[in-house]
């Protein structure tokens, strides 16, 4: 008797219950708290906020806990939550020049106004497992940095490196624009996309995808000769205009990572020889992503700068933008787990028919 996928409802309930048990793990081990994840898994939290497009460290930590540490699943939880939130207001553009920097480095100048600030970085650490971290309960020996700290609030602005080059006309001018950028979470993606839309897609795009795209440009697929003009991480104030008050009010602070690349450019039919820019801006401390984003941004600007399209994937706007979102990608990839037996049946009939005809032809020939 035929009893195929009956009882789907009960199966789903049981699977969810089992999942909850697996998430909790061994009951003799204390449960992770949201605060622990937020404080000690901060870079995972940052990634979930960036790709989830929602700046809320507590919710991101909750999502990570609920997703059993699967960051793409956590991003998905955040996205699904975010989409239900009302849009109360649009903030003024944040001023990264007024950022309270924790880290600020330039690879193009040895020293510069505002200084080189190394900040909390994995750079120059030796990647040796630190077994003292395994010694639970004992506080590992972490001396607090002596004296020098990152630049605090209220100190003078940290000028952007590219502005120094700008003064000499050595780098393309990035004119500030007042146009309201499109919102890819509220409008369907229309191609060709302008740069603001591309940057939006990249900043919430999958870190791994954007990284690989950027890497491919370094290896010759759409080479753009990038230098890290500047990389800065720190907090900026978010301000919102209150029409009733007639002035802007600071509603909070967010941490951002900003990267500007300076790219060699020999000139084209339309543009003189000068340095050109790639830009990356990502929520939280997400350095790898910000650098990768700025490389991909620059590669995608080939048309505007009159360069040739070499067929490199990173130059191909439609390819990059349509495939960088990991929530879309993972959903569609994993949907092939769903039953497809109706289509498969149709294919079976077709293959059987084609085979029967091919066999008949073969027999006739023999």
């Amino acid at each position, binding site marked *: 008797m035929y009893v195929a996928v009956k*009882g789907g409802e009960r199966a*789903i309930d049981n699977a969810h219950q089992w999942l909850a048990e697996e998430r909790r793990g061994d009951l003799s081990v204390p449960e992770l708290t949201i605060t622990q994840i937020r404080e000690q898994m901060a870079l995972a939290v940052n990634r979930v906020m960036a790709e989830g497009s929602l700046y809320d460290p507590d919710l991101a930590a909750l999502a990570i806990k609920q997703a059993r540490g699967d960051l793409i699943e956590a991003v998905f939880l955040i996205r699904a939550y975010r989409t239900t939130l009302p849009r109360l207001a649009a903030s003024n553009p944040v001023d990264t020049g007024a950022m309270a920097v924790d880290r600020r480095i330039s690879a193009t100048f040895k020293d510069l106004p505002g200084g080189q600030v190394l900040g909390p970085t994995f750079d120059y650490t030796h990647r040796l497992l630190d077994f003292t971290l395994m010694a639970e309960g004992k506080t590992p020996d972490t001396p607090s940095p002596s004296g020098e700290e990152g630049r605090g609030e209220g100190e003078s602005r940290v000028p952007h490196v590219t502005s120094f080059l700008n003064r000499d006309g050595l780098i393309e001018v990035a004119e500030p624009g007042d146009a309201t950028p499109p919102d890819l979470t509220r409008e*369907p993606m229309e191609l060709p996309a302008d740069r603001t839309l591309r940057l939006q897609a990249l900043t919430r795009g999958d870190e791994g995808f954007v990284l690989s795209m950027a890497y491919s440009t370094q290896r010759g697929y759409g080479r753009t000769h990038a230098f890290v003009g500047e990389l800065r991480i720190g907090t900026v104030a978010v301000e919102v205009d209150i029409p009733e008050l007639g002035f802007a009010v600071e509603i909070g602070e967010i941490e951002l990572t900003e990267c500007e690349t300076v790219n060699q450019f020999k000139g084209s039919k339309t543009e003189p020889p000068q340095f050109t820019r790639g830009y990356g801006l990502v929520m939280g401390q997400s350095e790898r992503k910000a650098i990768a984003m700025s490389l991909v941004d620059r590669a995608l600007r080939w048309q505007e700068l009159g360069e040739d399209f070499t067929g490199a994937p990173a130059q191909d706007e439609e390819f990059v933008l349509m495939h960088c979102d990991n929530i*879309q990608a993972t*959903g569609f990839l994993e949907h092939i787990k769903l*039953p497809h037996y*109706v289509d498969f*049946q149709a294919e079976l009939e077709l293959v059987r028919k084609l085979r029967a005809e091919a066999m008949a032809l073969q027999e006739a020939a023999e």
Partner: protein
Amino acid sequence: MLDAGSQAEAYNFAYLDEQTKRMIRRAILKGIAVPGYQVPFASREMPMPYGWGTGGVQVTAACLVPEDRLKVIDQGADDTTNAVSIRRFFQRTAGVAVTEATSEATVIQTRHRIPEVPLTAGQILVYQVPIPEPLRFLEPRETETRKMHELEEYGLMHVKLYEDIARHGQIATSYAYPVKVEGRYVMDPSPIPKFDNPKLAGNPAIQLFGAGREQRIYALPPWTKAVSLDFDDHPFETSKAPHDCDLCGAKDSYLDEVITDDAGGRMYVCSDTDFCAGRRARGMKGRLWAPEPEGVA
């Protein structure tokens, strides 16, 4: 996620906020006004993954009213896991009545099938669509395919079908078989078996197609012409397994093939579970019919 009933109360009727529903309804109306044309819409992230029916779910959410009676099927069956999941979602977020009976439903969300029981005026059939673009596998670029639709440039599709005939002696597409709508747009009917294609045309129900990830909605209003692409000397043919249903004996329904043992044993059963159960309830019996075992819902 919506695991607790109380959490559902935090959301609007049918989950989406009214602004979003209005935006989707506009896209649906445009789709109905231009049958077969793919209308871009600002698809939202849903609490289920892209590729799992988010387009259909958004269209259903935009169509539902509290008086509706909803049916959800996947592969023709009401009890497949994803159909169960989507039906539950709307039970929780919209509190609408649900049914498995095609004739009793006002809105039917489907994946990969059109029910066997003919639809009637006033019903809405919502299809989940993975890839809305019928030309996608011939031309991967959206910018190009939109242009091809604008210019009614469907030569590539005919070349593909012709090459099939040259190579295989027939058109080697068995599901998601493209149709031309009202002599204008070539449309992907979603991955339904071509057996279902004739039901697309002249259907008294409203047929809506939602592709969430690809951000497209399109429609076949009632009594619309939808012609499966073919050639005069190679007319379109439907196909199904050359058997009768082993449970209800139906000769003209689409069948699933079920492997019953590891020695080549097979049985064939209606993919439309409501159709099959209805026939059995009316006393029709197939080759292997037996009373339903106890304890199986």
